[in-house]
């Protein structure tokens, strides 16, 4: 009987125990390099498989006007509220510049007026936050590809880093994408939301739309796009604010 009890205790509860132990494990366990490496392999698999399962130019669903959310939620920074930003906002962002720097053959800057004068793309898409909520909005902006063509991306460039005007907990927000997403037709630098200027809470005057990834990749208040070979020596080295600070996945396709 004792033998059976031991066996039962061991076996019936082994799975339950595993769950309970994981719940009880401290931060040190969850933050340990080994655990992260093992679990992180799934994120690499998501990246590889999700890219492999679709065409690289596969479009995210576009919706009708009737599907638009009544209120497009602002998340993260909802107002950069720096003196420079406030001054530019007061002036209708007439002085805002989008600089293309790094591995470009013709690095250059664009004013908002120049961006508005370029060919535009309008798309009604769903914004999926990593937290779980979704909002549908109508975005208008310049396809990123057109800007890259103007500035001439160098062959050694592998990533685009988006430097933003906002700071979270004192750290500048930034994000990065690879060239597959950079050249995707729905990847635009948006300056209009729902037929009006992008509101401050949603990233005025210019934000990235990268429709096949989660919301934190869609950098707001973008001031500079830097073409780089690797992400390792930018900021915290993981390719984005939340990636550095919160250990979120760089590839946010799921």
């Amino acid at each position: 009987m004792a033998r059976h009890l031991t066996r039962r205790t061991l076996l019936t509860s082994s799975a339950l125990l595993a769950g309970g132990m994981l719940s009880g494990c401290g931060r040190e366990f969850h933050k340990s390099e080994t655990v992260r490496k093992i679990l992180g392999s799934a994120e690499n698999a998501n990246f590889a498989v999700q890219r492999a399962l679709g065409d690289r130019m596969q479009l995210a669903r576009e919706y009708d006007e009737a599907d638009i959310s009544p209120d497009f939620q602002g998340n993260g920074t909802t107002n950069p509220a720096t003196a420079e930003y406030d001054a530019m906002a007061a002036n209708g962002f007439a002085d805002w510049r989008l600089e293309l720097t790094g591995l470009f053959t013709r690095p250059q800057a664009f004013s908002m007026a120049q961006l508005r004068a370029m060919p535009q793309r309008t798309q009604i898409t769903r914004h999926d936050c990593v937290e779980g909520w979704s909002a549908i909005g109508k975005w208008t902006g310049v396809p990123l590809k057109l800007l890259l063509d103007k500035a001439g991306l160098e062959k050694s460039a592998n990533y685009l880093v988006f430097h933003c005007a906002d700071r979270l907990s004192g750290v500048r927000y930034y994000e990065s994408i690879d060239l597959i997403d950079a050249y995707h037709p729905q990847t635009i630098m948006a300056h209009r939301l729902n037929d009006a200027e992008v509101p401050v809470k949603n990233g005025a005057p210019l934000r990235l739309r990268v429709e096949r990834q989660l919301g934190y990749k869609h950098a707001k208040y973008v001031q500079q796009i830097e073409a780089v070979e690797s992400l390792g020596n930018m900021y915290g080295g993981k390719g984005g604010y939340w990636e550095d600070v919160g250990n979120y996945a760089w590839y946010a396709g799921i």
Partner: protein
Amino acid sequence: MLGKMDSDMKQPHSRAEPKHRLMTRLWHWVNAAALIILFMSGLNIFNAHPRLYWGSYGSWGDPAWLQLSRFPGWATIPGYYSLADARMWHFFFAWVLALSLLVFMVVSLINRHFQRDVHITRNEWRWSTLRSDIAQHLRGNFTHGGGTYNVLQKITYAVVLFVALPLMIFTGLTMSPAMAANWPWLLDIFGGRQSARSIHFIVTWALFAFFVLHIALVLLSGPLRQVRDMITGGTREPEEHI
């Protein structure tokens, strides 16, 4: 069923077939661990936005059909709130769940576990069979299946295997913006991303209910033998243990 067992036993030198085959046992425990981790890390993820909606969109400003407060730390993985860490656990074990289910399904078709043990015969669909099986369950007699699954068990396992678990996988994929772009039909069959998220949540609790019922019935029907058989395989002769 009995006829097949008789013929099996008549074969000279052949060992009695186990009650649960190796693949079934392996999958059972891998799946149990994966489901528990997915459940608890899923509750942590839910805590990031504890509201549910129908349709394509839904956020703080939109009407929710369900709003809860956060699940407590003892029920979540990790035991503290961390959306990023919970997502790591969830997506790793989502692969474990999906791949082990796929392997289990293919092997169970080949070794005829599905056809032999889970397939519900026309005879069993009769109301009289169902009624007598329900009556037996209510009387606490769980050994009336002749060593095989009774019809209520078959229905339950079939629903879990072929409805609930695939629903979890596909509603999960629908929430991925990349997969929704790759396979737009996902959005259509579930009625939008937020509906998929709601279905994911509802089926989670249906699986939890199954889990509770499953443990309760194991406890009521000889837990020592049941657990031992799910590890060692046991034998198919039911009378031996009564």
